[in-house]
């Protein structure tokens, strides 16, 4: 593949297609086994990121590159080859920020910043190096559509000044609006290079996945909101448990039988906290959580499970599944009571193994056996296992957080279909997701969690992407005002 000066080039591909490995090579974090890179007509083989930065290549990471307990200025200095003294650096940060509309206070602790502000730190860190190539790894995954537009404007300005931008994403619409060429990777190989404006999103997606994609479809007969709601959450309050967490404020919503209730919003706006409170991992300060009229707010997760409330949190290894335990043990993890896998504390391992085999068969989980460790499965397979484990326990209500995060397209489609099927069978599903398209695809009602507040739910027919974006942005704007 090749990049021209001043162009915005997209690098497209599914999870695990080799996008990250490729850019890590450009940034000197990984050495290629063979082949070479030529940069400004010279062989380029950086042995570490410092060399890459010196050569004029900068990178904005998707995660893992900011230090919560250090200040903005310290974070930026760490990403520079030869940073100026701190007072000069602080001035430069403010100047660059003004120039590109990316305002920051150099002395704030990074851990206290919002996702959008953290990304500004990363971008300014790169811009201070005057890079020739700027690599951006999934930059809009943490932004509202409105914030993303501000970012696109800044990127177009940069490109106009001659900076080349390599833009990694799997969001096809934004690539179509922003990029002038696209290189598509599949299973570690370049499969196509094209002009994204000339292709439809569907064509791009099929090039990426290699097969045609079936979009899950809801049946039209949706649960009507008559009678009593199945699940009613009222005035849930919870203080942030860590320095960098979000406090939940007066969360209320209702879910009826047979419906998929979507909760949108960018991660870090209280999603994890809400999930923990609903599952009973932490108890709320006040409020009620009623299922079929019974208040569960003071019960622990197992008690809630016994009453039909099941959960699948966002993080798979280390939260919804134990990485260093077998699939059978992971099946036992949440299904002990509902599937009667133990009596008086004595575990019936053969029943647990049978249950895990059922999950594997019915949810098409690819694994050599039930004895394999959960962490040996790919993200998509493990998520299918986790969702399968909960669905096969016949929940009255299933709450999932980011059901398809980091999951390949085929598995994502099948997981969404299973969630819809569950709702159609008469149960209810609450989906917390930052993927607006996913919510529009499967939900009946949508509300948005932003800065710890949950908006009023609205039927999906009344909503457009832009509406949801505006709902998501509400609190982000107030945050930026504080910084300015």
């Amino acid at each position, binding site marked *: 593949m090749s990049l021209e000066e001043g162009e915005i080039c997209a690098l497209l591909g599914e999870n695990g297609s080799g996008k990250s490995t490729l850019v890590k090579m450009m940034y000197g974090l990984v050495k290629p086994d063979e082949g070479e890179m030529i940069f400004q007509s010279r062989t380029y*083989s950086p042995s570490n990121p410092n060399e890459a930065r010196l050569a004029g290549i900068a990178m904005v990471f998707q995660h893992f590159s900011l230090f919560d307990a250090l200040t903005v200025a310290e974070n930026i200095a760490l990403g520079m080859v030869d940073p100026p003294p701190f007072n000069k650096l602080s001035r430069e940060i403010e100047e660059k920020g003004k120039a590109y509309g990316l305002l920051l206070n150099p002395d704030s602790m990074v851990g206290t910043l919002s996702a959008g502000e953290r990304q500004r730190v990363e971008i300014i860190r790169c811009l201070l190096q005057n890079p020739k190539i700027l690599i951006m790894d999934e930059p809009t995954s943490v932004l509202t559509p409105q914030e993303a537009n501000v970012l696109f404007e800044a990127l177009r300005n940069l490109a106009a000044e001659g900076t080349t931008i390599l833009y990694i994403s799997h969001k096809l619409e934004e690539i179509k609006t922003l990029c002038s060429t696209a290189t598509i990777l599949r299973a570690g190989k370049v499969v196509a290079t094209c002009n994204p404006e000339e292709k439809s999103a569907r064509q791009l997606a099929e090039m990426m996945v290699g097969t045609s994609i079936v979009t899950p479809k809801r049946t039209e007969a949706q649960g009507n909101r008559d009678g009593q709601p199945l699940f009613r959450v009222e005035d849930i309050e919870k203080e942030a448990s860590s320095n960098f967490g979000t406090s939940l404020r007066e969360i209320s919503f209702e879910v009826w039988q047979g419906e998929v209730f979507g909760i949108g919003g960018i991660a870090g706006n209280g999603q994890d906290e809400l999930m923990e409170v609903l599952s009973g991992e932490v108890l709320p300060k006040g409020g009620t959580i009623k299922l079929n009229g019974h208040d569960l707010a003071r019960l622990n*997760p197992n*008690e809630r499970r016994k009453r039909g409330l099941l959960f699948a949190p966002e993080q798979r290894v*280390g939260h919804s599944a*134990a990485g260093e*335990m077998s699939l059978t043990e992971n099946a036992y993890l949440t299904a002990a009571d509902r599937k009667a896998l133990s009596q008086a504390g004595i575990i019936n391992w053969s029943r647990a193994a049978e249950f895990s085999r059922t999950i594997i068969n019915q949810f098409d989980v690819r694994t050599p056996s039930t004895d394999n*460790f959960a962490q040996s499965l790919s993200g998509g397979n493990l998520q299918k296992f986790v969702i399968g484990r909960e669905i096969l326990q016949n929940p009255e209500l299933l709450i999932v957080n980011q059901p398809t995060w980091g999951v390949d397209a085929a598995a994502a489609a099948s997981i969404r279909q299973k969630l819809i099927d569950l709702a159609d069978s008469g149960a209810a599903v609450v989906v917390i997701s930052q993927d607006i398209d996913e919510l529009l695809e499967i939900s009946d009602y949508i509300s948005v969690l932003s800065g710890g507040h949950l908006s009023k739910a609205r039927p999906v027919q009344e909503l457009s992407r832009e509406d949801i974006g505006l709902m998501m942005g509400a609190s982000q704007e107030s945050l930026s005002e504080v910084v300015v």
Partner: protein
Amino acid sequence: MLVFERRREPSRFWTAITPVLAVLVTLIAGGIMFAILGKNPVEAIKTIFWAPIFDPNLSAYARPQILVKAAPLVLIAIGLSIGFKANIWNIGAEGQYIMGAILGGGVALAFYPLEAWWIFPLMIVSGIVGGIAWAMIPALLKIKFRTNEILVSLMLVYVSEHFLASVSLGLLRNPDGIGFPGSRNLQHYTSASNGELFVGTGIHLGVIVALVSIFALYGLIRFHRLGFQVRVTGQSVRISRFAGVNPNLMVIFCLAASGGLAGLAGIFELSGPAGQLSIDFNVGYGFTAIIVAFLGRLNPFGIALAALLMSLTYIGGDLAQFMLNLPSAAIQALQGMLLFFLLSMDFLSQYRITIKHWARG
């Protein structure tokens, strides 16, 4: 270059074989250490590891002694292994061992010279209670104030050692001891004596209980929900909450189990082989048991084997001190070395080592 690649699952072969390898490497390294000390390495190793079991003149005495000395190690290590599996680090078993002995012994001596059948069980229960109570200090402080249980439990070892010194010179001192420090000898108090079960072997009730504890731990970890929850907590606190475990109760359970078993070991030792409370009553079983737990890979049967090995080094060490004038500290160094080698070889079960060539640009 060598490339370390993390295995998705630890290799079962290497997990089983590394303790054996570690022991072999320790024998070699230990031999080198003895050679540097100016001892004949072959002779020293043979005296420590071979003579107690196979020397015809010694084995009749030494073989049962291995079991006797392994018993407290097994009891303590079994308890510790529960906490270690859950990432709850009780390092103060030595203190809980002492406090179990003091409380159990104190209760028994309070009834001296009354002879009654209930004194012995009461003494044993008091020993367990003493160990649990002492272990509850780090547990409750951890729950209430998030203090580090490693540091608190360890500080309490020093406190309990000073306490032991004070009671054996004061409160529990033998009134008929004509000024000698130390308590009455429980072996001479029939109702509280934990005597030999088989004449001439020294094997006492503690050995049997230790054996039972091995199977109890196996059942708990393998087949009981509580044991499963212990293992889940060891994976991460977050997932244990998700699985409905109350992390605070888990801290209490793990420290109570290890403290109680350490206290039990203490009272068995006091009423059996040791006989009396004195300043030097504790000999470091609480610390050696940490090595035993790791060497046994936190597995009950592994712990049994590791305890036997450690016990062997104690007895062999005494022999070597007596026959070869080898300093007793050498055994402690040998035990530390063994743990080092074991930990470093764990790498083999976690990682695959491959040799990788890269083609040049």
